Each structure stands twice: as structure tokens, then as C-alpha cells.
């Protein structure tokens, strides 16, 4: 039983994937939007003077980083509704899962970037009478944010790929759409190859935008 590669299948598959691409992007962007908010809050909690807040943030970050995303997704989609009686749609569960998961990694990005700003900046801010919050807002955060851009770009790529795990809860994102096409035409080789190429196109585009942003920032700081 010989295998013949069929270009035609790839060309046919491509347009069929677009709805999946769209959902993948929506879930990634939505997840990262909330993930950044969660990450910023937890990252700052980790730097807080309050031991309680630091511990709380630590427990969250360690729990997420120490468990597989797929378990988190299943827990959120199948486990939580069982305990609470609240049903959520697969897409909402996907966005929440990506947000909660990326939030833990973004917390570390935020913490690292804030800590990397020279302590002299904080001292200069405090010495002219700014409060701790004002110093963070006007002096530390803007400098830290620039340093967050490269690792945030990385997290963007990671989270985008992570959305493919949502296949387990039936979200019609790119991977799921690929599966459904194969169920009809049985051309696993061509379809998965196409799906892979589409992911690669997305991740390479993000990497490119990231690189351009970094170059622009570098030019500005080398003024």
C-alpha cells in the first residue's frame, strides 16, 4: 500500500482552517489580555511588603507552573462546573485557562522586570516625596515595561501554541478543525502538515513583530 503525497489536499485544507485560525487568535489574545492583568497584579504582589500577599501570589504561581496545562483545562471545564453548578462554554473556558496559565508566567516576567530597575530610581523617586505607589507608577513601571516586551512576546508564542490543547474540551480552534477535516478525508499527513505550517506562520509573524519592536526600542535607548 503505497503512499502518494497530494498537494491538492493541502491547498484544499488551507481555507477550511481559517475559522480555526480565527478562534485560535481570539482565544490567545483574550487569554493574554486577562493573563497580563493577572500577571501584573500577582507579580506586584510578589514584591509587596505584605508577607500574606507574597505567599498568596507564590501559591498561585507555583500551582500553575507545577501542573500540566491539560490538567488545568480539564479541571476548569469538567471539574469546576461539577462542584459549583456553573456551566461555561468551551471558548470561555479556553480563554480563562490561557489567562490563568499565562498569568503565572507573566507574574514572573513582571516581577523580574520590576526588580531589574536600579534601586537608585526608587530612591530618587522617594527622595523627592513621591509615595511608593507614585514611584511605581511614574518611575519604575514605565522602565520595567520596556524590559517586559521581549519575554511577553515569548509568552505570546507559547500561549498561542498552548491553545491547541483546548482540543480536549472541543473548542473549534485550529487543531480541532484539522482533526475534523481528517475525520472526513483521512489525509492525516497533508492536513497535519498544513496545520503545522499555519501555526508556524503565526508564530514567525509574532517573532518578527517582536524583533522589530526590540530594534525600535534599542534605537531609542541608544539615542
Amino acid at each position, binding site marked *: 500500500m503505497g503512499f502518494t503525497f497530494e498537494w491538492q489536499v493541502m491547498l484544499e485544507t488551507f481555507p477550511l482552517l481559517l475559522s480555526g485560525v480565527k478562534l485560535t487568535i481570539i482565544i490567545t489574545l483574550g487569554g493574554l489580555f486577562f493573563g497580563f492583568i493577572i500577571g501584573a497584579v500577582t507579580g506586584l504582589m510578589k514584591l509587596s511588603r505584605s508577607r500574606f500577599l507574597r505567599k498568596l501570589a507564590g501559591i498561585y504561581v507555583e500551582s500553575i507552573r507545577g501542573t500540566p496545562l491539560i490538567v488545568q483545562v480539564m479541571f476548569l471545564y469538567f471539574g469546576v462546573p461539577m462542584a459549583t453548578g456553573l456551566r461555561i462554554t468551551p471558548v470561555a473556558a479556553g480563554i480563562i485557562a490561557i489567562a490563568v496559565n499565562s498569568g503565572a508566567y507573566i507574574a514572573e516576567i513582571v516581577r523580574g522586570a520590576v526588580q531589574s530597575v536600579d534601586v*537608585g530610581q526608587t530612591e*530618587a523617586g522617594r527622595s523627592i*516625596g513621591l509615595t511608593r505607589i507614585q514611584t511605581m507608577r511614574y518611575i519604575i513601571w514605565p522602565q520595567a515595561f520596556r524590559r517586559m516586551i521581549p519575554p511577553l512576546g515569548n509568552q505570546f508564542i507559547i500561549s498561542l501554541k498552548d491553545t491547541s490543547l483546548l482540543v480536549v474540551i472541543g473548542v473549534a480552534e485550529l487543531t480541532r478543525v484539522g482533526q475534523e477535516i481528517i475525520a472526513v478525508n483521512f489525509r492525516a499527513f497533508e492536513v497535519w502538515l498544513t496545520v503545522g505550517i499555519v501555526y508556524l506562520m503565526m508564530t514567525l509573524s509574532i517573532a518578527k513583530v517582536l524583533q522589530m519592536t526590540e530594534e525600535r526600542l534599542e534605537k531609542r535607548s541608544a539615542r
Partner: protein
Amino acid sequence: MIEIENLHKSFGSLEVIKGIDLHIRPGEVVCIIGPSGSGKSTVLRCINRLEDATSGRIILDGSDLSDPATNINQVRAEATMVFQGFNLFPHMTVLQNVTLGPVKVRRMSKEAADALGIELLQKVGLAEKAGSFPDQLSGGQQQRVAIARALALRPKAILFDEPTSALDPELVGEVLEVMKQLAREGMTMVVVTHEMGFAREVADRVVFIDQGIIQEENTPDELFGNPQNPRLRDFLGKVLSHG
């Protein structure tokens, strides 16, 4: 203006300040000299409450810094600090560096703060750099901006921590010139410095700190001309032969 009474400061088990009393009058210029590691910066940082004193009292223009009821942010703005490493805010223009304090701490309108900022930049000779960023300036220029930033709060006193130590020798003069002008205008200044020429010329009083206590204090003429403490003699012998 600034009253320091029996100040002690320890970092963990290391006692760095071992009982310092210092009263600084309005308009007075006090230079603090002493070997490195003797606790000079720590004294300044306790006045500005960047460090909390372990014990003792510091009263700044009538406000007790150790009293929990004191609004520490407002008090800090009354004795602003100029750092050895400038510590300008790199993401802000020169003018924004100067106006941040007036706008956020003094609640000044942006227009009034900009006018004040330009006036102060003129004073330090850098009005034409208002729109530049700190990394476009020389070290001497950056330190003059830092002085304008410290002045912008209209503080009762300014604390200088080795303001010229990080500068190339040829840039030291322009910063000292600005400081001399402030002294002539009656600003209360506490200056930690290794510039003995500046101390001799500008200071009303020179304080020699070593091993966490004031070993000797006097007018510059007396302290440099007729040092009593053997440590001071030793210290002056070393720095003057270098400079």
C-alpha cells in the same frame, strides 16, 4: 532646621552610626568628610528617611521623623537629595525630571511646574536641554539636572551625597559652581564630599565622621588648618597628598 540627636543605625548586627548629634541651622552649609565606609551616606539617608534610624531623633523643620503621625512623603520633599550616581529618570525628558515632583507632590499645575522647571534649568545653565533625555547629557549636565530636580520641590534643605565623585575631573567644576551659587543664595545644604577645596571655600562648618561618630567638627579654617583628632590628621594627610 535639621536636628539630629543621638542617632544610631545598625544594619543587622553591624552598627554603622554610633551616636551622632548634629544641629544644622537655616542657611548653613555643612560639609561632611571622612573615609569611605565611615557612615556619611547613612547619616544623609536617615535624614531623608531612605533608611530608618535604629534609635535617636531627627527633627526636620519641626517634624519629628520618628513620629508615626508625620507624613513622611511631605517631609522628604523638604530635604531632597542629590545622589552620587545622579539617578535621573531615563524615560523622561530633562524638564519632566524636574517637574515630576512639583506636579505629583506639590500638586502644582502643569503650566506652573513647567515655568518653574525652565526657571530652575536656567539657573543650572541647562534651559536649552529641557527637551533632551538624560542619556544625551554629560555626567556634569546630568548632575546639574538632578540639582534642579531637587530644587523644584522648594525644599528647606538639600542633601548632597558625593555629588561629584562619579564625574570625570573636568566636569567637577561646573557642578561645584552651581552648588556654590546655591550656598550664596542661602540654601541650607548638607554635603558629603571629598572636594576639600569646596569644603574649605563654601562650608560654614565641616564635620569629620569616622567609625560612625563625629570625631571633630569646626569651621573649615580651624578644621583644616589646625586639626586636633589624630584620625582627622591621618585622613587629611592622605586626601590632601592625593588631591
